[in-house]
C-alpha cells in the first residue's frame, strides 16, 4: 500500500447531480417541450398471437389534429435485433408489426398528432383486422411438437452456434453421479419483474436545420440506441445526435431500443419534433420485464458435503422477441453452477420464445436468477447432508487456481472470506476448520474428487 493520503476513498462525496435533483432543475424527457411538437401514440395488438389481415385508418384520419400514420412499410429496415451490434442474429423483431403479432401490446402502427389527446383519440379509432392464432405461454410447452411456431426459422428457440440451447460441458456428468452418495433435485422458477421506473420510457426526436435529428432520450444505452436507430432508419450514424444521460430510474428497463427509431422516423417525415413517451400503463403492459426462468437441478453430493456433479436444465422465457435475453442466457449458463468448485458439470440453458411480452435486461440479468436458484439448491443440499448452510458453501467455494466449468481459471476469488465475514456479522458460529479456510489454498479443506476426465466441449 502506498503511504500517499487518500483524497476520496473512505469519504462520502456528494452527488454531482444532487443539487439539480433537489431543486427540480434536472431535465427529464417529459420536461422537454417544443412549440411545434407532435405526439406519437401506438396502435397495439389486443391479442397475444394473431395474423394481421388489414388496417383501416379512415376514422383516425378524421380526428382534428391528426397528422399521419406510420406502418412497417414506412420503416426502411423494419426487422432488427438489438444485440446485432455484438453479433447476435438473425434480425427478428419488427419496429412495427408486419403480417403477425406475437404478443399482446405489440406495436402495429404509430399515430402522430398535434396534441396528446388527438393522438390517443386517433389511435383508438384505428381498426385492425386480426385473425387470432393459438398462443403459447409456457417455456416447455413451446418446445413440444405441435406448439404454435413463432419464428420464421421454424422453432421457438434461439440457436447458439448450431445448438438448440447454450451448453456447458465439464468433466463427465454420468460418472460424476456414480461417485455421489445423494442425488438432490430441485426446480426453481424466478418470475418476471417489471422495473417500473418512476420516469416512464420515452424520447423526443427533433429535426434540425442541418438535416440531422436530435434525439433526447432516457435510454440507459445511448450509443446502442443511436446505432440501432441509424441501422433501422438506414441513415449514417452522423445524421443522428443522441442526447441523454439523465434516466429517471432504469434498472435495465431502459436498455431496449423501442421508442427512438419510430420517433426519429416520424420527426424525419413530418419535419416536427415528436415526443413518444410511454404511459404508466404502457410501462407496465408492454415494456420488457426481467426474464422468467424454469430451472431444474440434479446434483450429485457426497456424504461429506462435496458437490461432485451438477446437471442443470434451464428454460428462459424470452417472450416474443430476443431483446437482451439470448445474451442473458449465456451469462446464466456460465453462472448457474454457482461460485463453487464442482468437478462434473452439465448445463443446457434454453432461450425460448413464447407469446408473452418480451423480456430483457434487469439488474444482473441471467446471473441473479442463477444465483437465486443455485443458493436455494445449496440450502436444500445442506439439509440433505445435515450440514450448516455456511459451512457447506465454504467447503465447496471456489479458490484461486480452480477451473470454472466454462474453462476459465479463477484468479480473483474472495468467496471464502465473504462468507466468513457474513457469518461473523450474523453472529453465526463456524467450525474451527472453516474459520481457518482462505481463498488461496485448500489447506483446511479435505481432498476433493477430481474431474472424471478433462473432457472439453464447446
Amino acid at each position: 500500500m502506498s503511504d500517499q493520503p487518500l483524497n476520496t476513498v473512505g469519504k462520502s462525496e456528494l452527488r454531482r447531480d444532487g443539487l439539480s435533483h433537489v431543486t427540480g432543475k434536472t431535465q427529464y424527457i417529459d420536461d422537454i417541450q417544443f412549440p411545434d411538437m407532435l405526439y406519437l401514440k401506438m396502435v397495439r395488438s389486443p391479442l397475444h398471437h394473431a395474423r394481421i389481415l388489414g388496417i383501416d385508418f379512415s376514422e383516425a384520419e378524421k380526428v382534428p389534429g391528426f397528422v399521419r400514420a406510420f406502418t412497417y412499410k414506412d420503416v426502411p429496415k423494419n426487422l432488427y435485433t438489438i444485440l446485432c451490434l455484438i453479433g447476435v442474429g438473425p434480425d427478428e423483431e419488427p419496429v412495427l408489426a408486419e403480417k403477425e403479432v406475437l404478443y399482446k401490446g405489440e406495436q402495429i402502427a404509430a399515430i402522430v398528432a398535434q396534441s396528446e389527446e388527438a393522438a390517443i383519440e386517433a389511435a383508438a379509432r384505428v381498426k385492425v383486422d386480426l385473425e387470432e392464432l393459438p398462443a403459447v405461454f409456457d417455456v416447455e410447452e413451446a418446445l413440444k411438437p405441435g406448439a404454435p411456431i413463432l419464428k420464421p426459422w421454424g422453432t421457438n428457440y434461439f440457436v447458439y452456434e448450431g445448438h438448440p440451447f447454450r451448453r456447458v460441458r465439464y468433466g463427465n456428468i454420468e460418472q460424476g453421479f456414480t461417485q455421489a452418495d445423494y442425488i438432490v433435485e430441485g426446480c426453481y422458477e424466478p418470475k418476471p419483474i417489471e422495473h417500473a421506473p418512476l420516469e416512464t420510457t420515452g424520447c423526443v426526436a427533433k429535426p434540425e436545420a442541418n438535416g440531422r435529428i436530435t434525439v433526447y432520450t432516457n435510454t440507459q444505452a445511448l450509443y446502442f440506441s443511436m446505432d440501432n436507430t441509424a441501422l433501422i432508419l438506414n441513415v449514417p450514424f452522423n445524421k443522428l445526435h443522441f442526447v441523454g444521460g439523465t434516466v429517471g430510474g432504469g434498472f435495465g428497463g431502459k436498455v431496449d431500443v423501442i421508442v427512438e427509431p419510430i420517433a426519429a422516423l416520424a420527426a424525419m417525415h413530418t419535419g416536427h419534433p415528436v415526443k413518444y413517451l410511454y404511459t404508466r400503463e404502457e410501462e407496465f403492459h408492454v415494456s420488457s420485464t426481467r426474464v422468467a426462468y424454469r430451472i431444474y437441478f440434479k446434483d450429485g453430493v457426497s456424504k461429506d458435503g462435496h458437490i461432485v456433479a451438477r446437471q442443470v436444465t434451464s428454460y428462459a422465457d424470452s417472450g416474443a422477441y430476443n431483446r437482451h435475453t439470448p445474451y442473458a442466457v449465456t451469462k446464466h449458463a456460465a453462472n448457474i453452477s454457482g461460485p463453487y468448485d464442482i468437478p462434473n458439470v452439465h448445463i443446457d440453458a434454453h432461450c425460448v420464445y413464447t407469446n408473452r411480452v418480451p423480456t430483457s435486461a434487469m439488474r444482473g440479468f441471467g446471473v441473479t436468477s442463477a444465483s437465486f436458484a443455485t443458493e436455494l439448491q445449496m440450502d436444500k443440499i445442506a439439509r440433505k447432508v445435515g450440514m450448516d448452510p455456511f459451512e457447506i458453501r465454504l467447503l465447496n467455494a471456489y479458490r484461486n487456481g480452480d477451473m470454472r466449468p466454462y474453462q476459465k481459471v479463477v484468479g480473483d476469488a474472495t468467496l471464502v472470506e465473504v462468507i466468513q465475514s457474513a457469518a461473523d456479522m450474523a453472529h453465526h458460529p463456524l467450525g474451527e476448520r472453516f474459520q481457518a479456510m482462505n481463498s488461496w489454498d485448500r489447506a483446511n479443506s479435505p481432498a476433493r474428487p477430481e474431474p472424471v476426465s478433462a473432457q472439453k466441449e464447446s
Partner: protein
Amino acid sequence: MASKIVTFTLNGRETEVMVKPLTTLAKALREKLGFTATKCGCYEGNCGSCTVILNGEPVLSCILPVEEVEGQNVLTLEGITPTEGLHPLQQAFHENFAVQCGFCSPGMLMISKALLDKNPHPTKAEIAEALSGNLCRCTGYDPIIAAVQQVAAGSNGNQGGSHE
C-alpha cells in the same frame, strides 16, 4: 369546450393560465407555465411525484383540475428553493444521499415540507406514514426518512419557505 382563464397564487405570485376544462394542475404548471420541477410518474394519482402544496395541504396535482385552485395558494418545489443556497430539506436530501435518479425527489420534498409545517418534530413512524403515498423505485426510503429526521432535529418549527 372553450378554454378559460384560471387565476391563482403560484409561489407567492399572482398567476393566470388559460386552459381547456379539466386540464390538471400538473399539466398547467408543467406545460402552460413551464414549472417543470413538479414531476408526473403516472398521471393517475398513484406515485406521488406530482405532490404540491395547496393552502398548506399536500395534493396530487396530476389529478386535480386546475379550475379547483382558482383564487388559492399553490406552492411548488420552485417556490421553496431560495435565491441562494438551499431549503433545509433540500440541503438534508442532498447531504443524506436521499436522491438517486431524482425523479421522485420533488414530490418527496413537498410532502416532507407539508409534514414539517404541521408537525415540526415528527417521529420516524410519522415520517414514514407521511411519505407512504410517494414511491421511490430506486428504493432509497431510509436516506429520505433520515434527511427529514435531520431537519426535524434541527428545526425551529418554522419551515415556511425560509432558510437559515
